[in-house]
């Protein structure tokens, strides 16, 4: 059956096929050429046509060309693939052409700005002579963007701590299968404690002959990582507890979880941060002091935990009642039922949602500038107001955008990997 169809739709005359193919390719190239000349040489080869038509000639030529090229089962592999993906119908062909033209339109100026007209050598503002980006600015300020106001001579301490924490995180991949059950305990309780101790003694310093550096001086990307790291680790278990609490039968647990979630979801993060820095200390007894950074991490954690809770609750509600019934009928109590049966399935379901929340958290960290902590975006804002370096905010934001994109994209990829790993239904 299939083979018959195949034969029917094949063009009957090989000669015809080649001619239409050539016409199509020519027309398409003509369209592209017209567009390029219009854009880059300021020449309009269709000047004799009225304005509006002349404006659309590249599109008309290219789409007509694609129409001729659209031959089913042409026998040419690349052509078949192209037809199948970007040229299935006239509408599709028009959209594809628009996108191609847009890329031609936008790519060269972008490349010029990023690379060809950009300057990177030198270390003063005056070194930037081209019309493109001034990467000198990023180069000169790079240390600040990474480490904030942390003293240059002491920056190795941050590097050492980060490498150590990464090493402790990596331990999970090498533990023997016997200890696998304790991994979640390790990651949610031991790892944060270890990291905190490392940060406290090495980055903060003050003992073992290390100079004390106050948290106000920390900053840049390393601060982004620290804030995100602790908030992510803590907001997940907390969110899980809140999600379970909200579905609990005990009124006290249920309504306290509910009001907690609704409170934190109802206030903007920026006010939460502000209150954590300004109002919270007023409620503390005289003489007690909790570091600003800790307060901020706690505030972000509580805030994001409320969101995580609702995402996880979505997963819990998606499970059929039969799963609960089956677990109960085997004699499992509330905790055993949730730990072994309900949560593993619910969490698997909500991996995309959790990843979403986590990405949002990371991208929310720049808001800590309201309490005077300057992570990477905060440092950019500071640097762009430096009298010696006025006028380079564009480079700075592009740089920050790239950094955040890399972080978020790798997390998103990782979450997709997890989804595949835990997929058991086929």
């Amino acid at each position, binding site marked *: 059956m299939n083979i018959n169809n195949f034969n029917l739709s094949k063009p009957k005359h090989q000669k015809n096929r080649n001619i239409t193919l050539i016409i199509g390719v020519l027309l398409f190239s003509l369209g592209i050429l017209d567009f390029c000349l219009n854009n880059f040489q300021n020449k309009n080869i269709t000047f004799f046509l009225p304005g509006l038509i002349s404006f659309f000639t590249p599109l008309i030529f290219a789409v007509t060309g694609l129409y001729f090229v659209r031959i089913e089962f042409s026998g040419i592999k690349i052509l078949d693939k192209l037809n199948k993906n970007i040229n299935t119908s006239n509408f599709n062909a028009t959209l594809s052409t628009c996108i191609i033209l847009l890329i031609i339109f936008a790519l060269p100026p972008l490349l010029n700005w990023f690379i060809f007209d950009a300057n990177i050598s030198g270390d003063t503002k005056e070194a930037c002579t081209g019309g493109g980006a001034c990467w000198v600015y990023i180069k000169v300020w790079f240390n600040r963007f990474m480490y904030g106001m942390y003293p240059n001579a002491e920056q190795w301490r941050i590097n050492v701590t980060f490498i150590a924490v990464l090493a402790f995180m990596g331990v999970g991949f090498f533990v023997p299968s016997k200890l696998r059950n304790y991994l979640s305990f390790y990651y949610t309780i031991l790892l944060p404690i270890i990291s905190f101790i490392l940060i406290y003694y090495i980055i903060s310093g003050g003992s073992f002959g290390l100079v004390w550096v106050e948290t106000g001086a920390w900053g840049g990307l390393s601060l982004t990582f620290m804030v995100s790291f602790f908030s992510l680790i803590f907001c997940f278990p907390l969110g899980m507890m809140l999600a379970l609490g909200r579905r609990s039968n005990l009124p006290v647990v249920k309504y306290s979880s509910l009001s907690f979630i609704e409170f934190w979801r109802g206030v903007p993060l920026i006010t939460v941060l502000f209150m954590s820095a300004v109002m919270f200390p007023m409620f503390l007894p005289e003489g007690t002091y909790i570091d600003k950074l800790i307060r901020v991490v706690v505030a972000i954690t509580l805030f994001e935990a409320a969101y995580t809770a609702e995402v996880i609750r979505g997963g819990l509600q998606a499970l059929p009642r*039969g799963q609960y019934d089956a677990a*109960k*009928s085997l004699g*499992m109590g509330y905790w055993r039922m949730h730990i072994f*049966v309900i949560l593993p399935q619910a969490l698997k379901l909500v991996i995309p949602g959790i990843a979403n929340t986590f990405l949002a958290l990371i991208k929310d960290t720049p808001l800590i500038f309201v309490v005077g902590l300057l992570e990477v975006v905060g440092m950019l804002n500071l640097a762009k107001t430096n009298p010696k370096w006025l006028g380079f905010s564009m480079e700075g934001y592009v740089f920050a955008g790239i950094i955040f994109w890399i972080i978020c994209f790798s997390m998103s990829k990782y979450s997709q990997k997890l989804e595949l790993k835990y997929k058991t239904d*086929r």
Partner: protein
Amino acid sequence: MSDPIIQIQKVNKWFGDFQVLKEIDLEVKSKEKIVVCGPSGSGKSTLIRCINRLEEHQKGSIIIDGTEISEDTKNIEQVRAEVGMVFQQFNLFPHLSILDNCTLAPIWVKKMSKKDAEALATEHLEKVQIIDQAQKFPGQLSGGQQQRAAIARALCMEPKIMLFDEPTSALDPEMIKEVLDVMVNLAKQGMTMIVVTHEMGFAKEVADQMIFMDEGMIVEKATTKDFFANPKSDRTKLFLSQIL
């Protein structure tokens, strides 16, 4: 055949205003097999779900092997560990392999060692003839295989009583037999069983007593022979004429 292992006395249950169970009295002796039938919505599933407290009854008492089912969660867990249940929709845990499905409760509820639990699971999986599927996930098995795995999972808790809630209703016709065969074998080994089913062939072969329920009441309760030969109530006669 001494003391009854299940004693149900004057049990009433409401869903809101709707009364699903009305004054249910039932005694089941050890090793007895009881088949419950009746039209849908008659409360038969609710009745057996009350026996292991997946549903709460509001009035009356249910005593399982000397333990009364009440609010006390300790009692409930103790009873559930002794009463196995098989569901219409199998309800295997899809994130665990068949073997892990079977060993989960023995390890974490009965505190068995992993090795013992696996040996036990292997034994029961062999009994239901899906030992070759032990490493697969439920989603990779046919309905009949899943239901047999679910039976094995329940048996791994070594229950004294097995409840079956329409175990073959969600299966293709050709898979029903493989599940019923397993249940017949189980009956022959002397398990106490309460089965909600429409499979009258199975009932005739296995049941000691038949119960017919309608509108939340036990309409007729008789030995299997009497039930099919000369049913007393008209409602039962009508039901049997439709189903046979």
